[in-house]
């Protein structure tokens, strides 16, 4: 039971960056913008978060920095995609590379260090009073990163906005048939800018989870592929907030298992493969049609 509860906690932690990465992808791609740059956006968020915490000494302001940084980079990303009409997949590759390079350069500028930042104030885990005492369910509320709750809120909010609001209806329509939406007099690009800015914020939060909640510093390339996993979870989850949440959780379970079987005597590389192999297995044999929003990559004037 003890072990089980620890595994649950671990899984929840592992799921946060993947699910947030997936949500970033879902938000962007449902509006028709191909987002291969989740990894880079997350890394930039991780960096701006630490920078904010470093400058102000407050981790919470650091969090706000990661939100602002995510928003700014999400917006710039869209400028390239929409205003400059760049090839969207290439923007992704470019942003990932840019994030890796610029954060390394800035480490030197702000801390005069290579490879990692100084430690900064972090956002502590929280235990929700009362609820955490409930058996079984309680452990979901015991000593958890507040990011976990933020993640759930984001997923819920995106779901509500997508499926219960006027702008959500329009936005989903934009991803399928932007011309139809445009001819009904809606400024398609404005919606895309706003949504992408939010996608950037979500990625930024995913990044600062790694640097401000899981750790207390920035390390170059510390996202270590989580953005790509998120991207995969978004596709696997069918470009849908709930799907992304579930897919992200599935990947997290596969990753959690990896930590518990590393002493089985199997060469470690096979253990490390586990999350990817499980994903692949599910994809190939359980099957999942790859049908994204119809207008993915399509621009309007």
């Amino acid at each position: 039971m003890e072990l089980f509860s620890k595994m649950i906690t671990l899984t929840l932690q592992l799921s946060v960056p993947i699910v947030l990465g997936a949500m970033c992808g879902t938000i962007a791609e449902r509006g028709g913008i191909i987002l291969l740059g989740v990894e880079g956006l997350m890394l930039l968020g991780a960096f701006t978060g630490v920078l904010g915490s470093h400058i102000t000494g407050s981790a919470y302001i650091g969090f706000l920095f990661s939100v602002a940084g995510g928003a700014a980079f999400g917006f710039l990303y869209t400028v390239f995609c929409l205003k400059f009409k760049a090839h969207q997949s290439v923007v992704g590759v470019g942003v990932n590379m840019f994030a890796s390079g610029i954060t390394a350069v800035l480490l030197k500028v702000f801390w005069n260090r290579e490879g990692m930042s100084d430690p900064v104030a972090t956002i502590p885990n929280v235990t929700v009073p009362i609820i955490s005492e409930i058996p079984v369910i309680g452990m979901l509320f015991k000593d958890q990163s507040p990011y976990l709750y933020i993640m759930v809120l984001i997923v819920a909010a995106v779901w509500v906005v997508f499926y219960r609001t006027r702008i959500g209806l329009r936005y989903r329509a934009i991803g399928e048939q932007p011309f139809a939406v445009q001819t009904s007099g809606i400024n398609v690009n404005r919606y895309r800018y706003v949504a992408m800015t939010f996608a950037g914020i979500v990625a930024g939060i995913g990044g600062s989870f790694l640097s401000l909640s899981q750790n207390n510093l920035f390390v170059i390339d510390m996202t270590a592929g989580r953005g790509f996993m998120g991207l995969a979870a978004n596709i696997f989850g069918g470009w849908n907030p709930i799907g992304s949440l579930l897919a992200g959780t599935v990947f997290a379970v596969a990753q959690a298992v990896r930590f518990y079987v590393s002493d089985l005597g199997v060469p470690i590389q096979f253990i490390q493969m586990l999350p990817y192999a499980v994903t692949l297995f599910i994809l190939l044999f359980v099957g999942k049609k790859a049908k994204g929003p119809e207008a993915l990559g399509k621009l309007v004037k």
Partner: protein
Amino acid sequence: GCGSKAPTTPSGIEASKPSESQTAAPKDFKVGIIFTEAGLGGQSFNDLAFEGVKKAATDLGITYDYVEPKSVSDEAIVQEDMASSEEYDIIICVGAEQIDALKKVAANYPEQKFALIDANLELPNVACYTSKEQEGSFMAGALAALLKQEKVTDKVSDGNTVGVMVGVNNPLLNRFVAGYTAGAKYINPKLEVLVDYVGGFGDPTTAKNIATTFNSKGADVIFHAAGASGMGLFQAAQEKGFVAIGVNLNQNGVAPDNIVASMMKRVDSSAYHAIESTLNGEFKAGLKVMGLADDGVGLNMEGSNIKLPESVTSKLDEIKELVVSGKLVIPAKIEEVNSFLESNKK
């Protein structure tokens, strides 16, 4: 150490007695240093070697250029480029992966002096330095076992589990694993040593997850050789209240309540030595192995708030003596640990 909190100046350098005649250093003595493709950052041996060079710059007044190649093949280009420029009095190549290239370049430029760190190459113009990481790690493993045996702090339990994680599964890092495992089990054969590989040097999050998992399986002394990933271990140690052992340079200051010691690997003194000896006209080709005996590796407890009792320190000194004297030959490969333990049963 992590920034302001920990001393970044490696203390191994004092041992090599910096030349007092630094004022006499020729103005134009220039050093070239080529790192591995992993580059600087994360307190790897690249950073350590760099510390040695920077120290030499302050102490000896030399100047230096450095290059962080992006791939292994870049290292060859830079070697060739530096050697052919004839600007450098010595070129320091870090990492065993540079051997293949250096073999050719050093032969092509017989007048050029080279130092090779972490590998051995027998050429008349190459001075080589390797470390016996397994010996230092052995001490770390012994320390881990002793901490538990002697109940040095209430951060350790009665259980029989300790852990070690390294960046990736490769022969160099497995020396740390082998030494640590041998050391722990040498003291207490009943100990179980958990081993895991982070999968990279820049992923503190995974390292932290490994550490918490180790901890949930009962391990409460955990050693790492995982570069910047190791920061996740320290973070976990602080959150969960267990003991960690640092690596390469003195990381004790990062979390002084939880890091009991760091296993120093004094690549910096190798680099410093290479520069100093060349400067003094004493450049000597051949291999210099830095083990416990030469203080090339070893434990450093300075700065930790976990104070070791006499019983532990004396035991550590005792073991160190056995290793230095050659009575204990520490295995460098994981496969050899068992036979080592067989033949050294107490």
